[in-house]
């Protein structure tokens, strides 16, 4: 074990950086291809017509959309960006964005597999339930915010423009032209999101290779320290939500609630996601979301410590 809490190695950083890019780019690409298709083929205000009029019900629906349209955290941002432009309320979009990486069949199965022999069914249910609950809470909080405080100016303009011109007569365009339009929109989103993705992966790779992870171990003895420590670790490691449960399960010294906090907070907010979210949201909103999620998940898990061993 290294003596220092931080020891940087350029080859190690480069190796982790390339491996996350190779793993993540297919999912970003999938998200941007979907976003291009949404841009050209989903009629404007379609989402408005689809969602319930009741704001609370619409946010709750956003929280369970991941079951029908599962997306990982890397690919979801370009999708919600286009869905917002097509009329999905920002509150529902935030609930979908935060819940989808957790409340989906793939994450449920991987969590169940990782925690076999450690109350897998209960743990999986708790992870999905808490993920949904926190995502809906965040969505409801966004309901009370002015849209200009949440969305970046360029995204806000695209929403306004979409509302003003409808679908711009897109449906009347020949299929080939719409496909070319979808490709261009997808490429535009890919390049935009990749700028933030690369920055995020860079910061995450720096910390995941240079920080001595055993500095967190002494914190495992007290729930009040173990929970924030594991959430911090989740933020630093920036793992994929489909495999993070296998890593969390290896922190045997930590109490179950701390692992739960790791598995709920990590897919919603990590170093990589701070940058990716910045492709859509204002820096102030991203910072508020990060702090809010940290506090809410921390407090909820601390409360759950009473019932969870």
């Amino acid at each position, binding site marked *: 074990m290294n003596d220092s809490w931080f020891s940087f190695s350029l080859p190690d950083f*480069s190796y982790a950086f*390339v491996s*996350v890019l*190779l*793993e993540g780019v297919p*999912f970003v690409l999938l998200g941007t*291809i979907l976003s291009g298709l949404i841009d050209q083929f989903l009629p404007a205000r379609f989402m408005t017509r689809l969602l319930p009029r009741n704001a609370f019900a619409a946010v709750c629906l956003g929280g369970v959309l991941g079951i029908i349209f599962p997306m990982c955290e890397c690919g979801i941002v370009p999708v919600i960006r286009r869905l917002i432009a097509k009329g999905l309320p920002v509150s529902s979009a935030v609930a979908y964005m935060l819940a989808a990486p957790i409340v989906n069949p793939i994450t449920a199965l991987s969590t169940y597999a990782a925690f076999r022999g450690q109350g897998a069914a209960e743990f999986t249910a708790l992870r999905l339930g808490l993920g949904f609950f926190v995502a809906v809470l965040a969505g409801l909080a966004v309901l009370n915010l002015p849209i200009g405080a949440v969305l970046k100016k360029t995204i806000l303009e695209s929403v306004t423009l979409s509302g003003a011109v409808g679908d711009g007569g897109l449906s009347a365009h020949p299929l080939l032209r719409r496909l070319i339009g979808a490709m261009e929109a997808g*490429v535009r989103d890919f*390049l935009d999101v990749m700028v933030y993705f690369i920055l995020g992966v860079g910061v995450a*790779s720096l910390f995941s290779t240079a920080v001595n992870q055993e500095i967190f171990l002494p914190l495992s003895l007290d729930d009040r320290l173990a929970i924030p420590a594991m959430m911090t670790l989740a933020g630093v490691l920036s793992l994929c939500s489909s495999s993070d449960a296998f890593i969390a399960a290896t922190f045997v010294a930590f109490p179950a609630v701390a692992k739960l906090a790791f598995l709920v907070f990590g897919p919603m907010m990590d170093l990589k996601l701070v940058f990716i979210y910045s492709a859509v949201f204002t820096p102030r909103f991203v910072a508020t979301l990060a702090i809010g999620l940290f506090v809410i998940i921390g407090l909820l898990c601390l409360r759950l410590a009473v019932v969870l061993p």
Partner: protein
Amino acid sequence: MTGILSRFAASGVLMVWGLVLTYFYLSDRIISYLHPAFHIYTAISGGVLLLLSLLLLLTVPSDSSRHALPGMGIFPLLLLTVPLLAATKLSPSQFGATAVMNRGMINNISDLPGFSPPQEPGLPNADGSIAEGTMMDPSLYLKKNADGYISAEAVDLLYAAGEPVMREDFENKQVEVNGQFLPALTGNPNGDRFNLTRLFVMCCAADARPVAISVESNPAIDLPKMTWVKVRGKATFPVEGGRHIPVLVAESVAETEAPQESFIY
């Protein structure tokens, strides 16, 4: 950068990414970075990016400003290409000692990602024979090399340490294990042990967890950290710290080539 120039720049960026992803897949370098389940996604993405790059050039609209691709200033252009190319060049395709030691060693099988306790074997028949299908003949999974050593992985010995029936299969047998050398900074009272390490991967190298067994060597071995070695010796499982731990008592330790597939899954 606007209009047609922006479109060419976007096409160039996609081309670079497509080529890099395709290169990693076709050169098999990807084996050192990702779990096999993810290789195909990288290959498909590389192909799609190359196709998109080409299509962008083939579909230039007559009014080029209509489909200008924003965000392609010099800074984004550099950010989208230089770090990828530099990291591809600099990356040694394996972790060094710094990152491995920062992650801490897994030397107890129950700490391994995805570990589930083995099922108890079925009860024997009334005559004491083992019921068919309840126990696997060890010779089916313990393969020996030409010199009679059981070819094992570090993780096999970790499993054996935690499971009595499997421990019997290995205990005091001659085994051969490959791994990377790291000095043993703990659990080394006589100064004659080192860690034989492998990386256990779930998705990609970034989530790799180092798995290690102890090797006892007389005289003590000192090599550059993370050197690939082939160790031959006797598998033992002494009780230390209240549990069985795998200790390979070395007969020989020889430097060896890194295997093409350096991870264990």
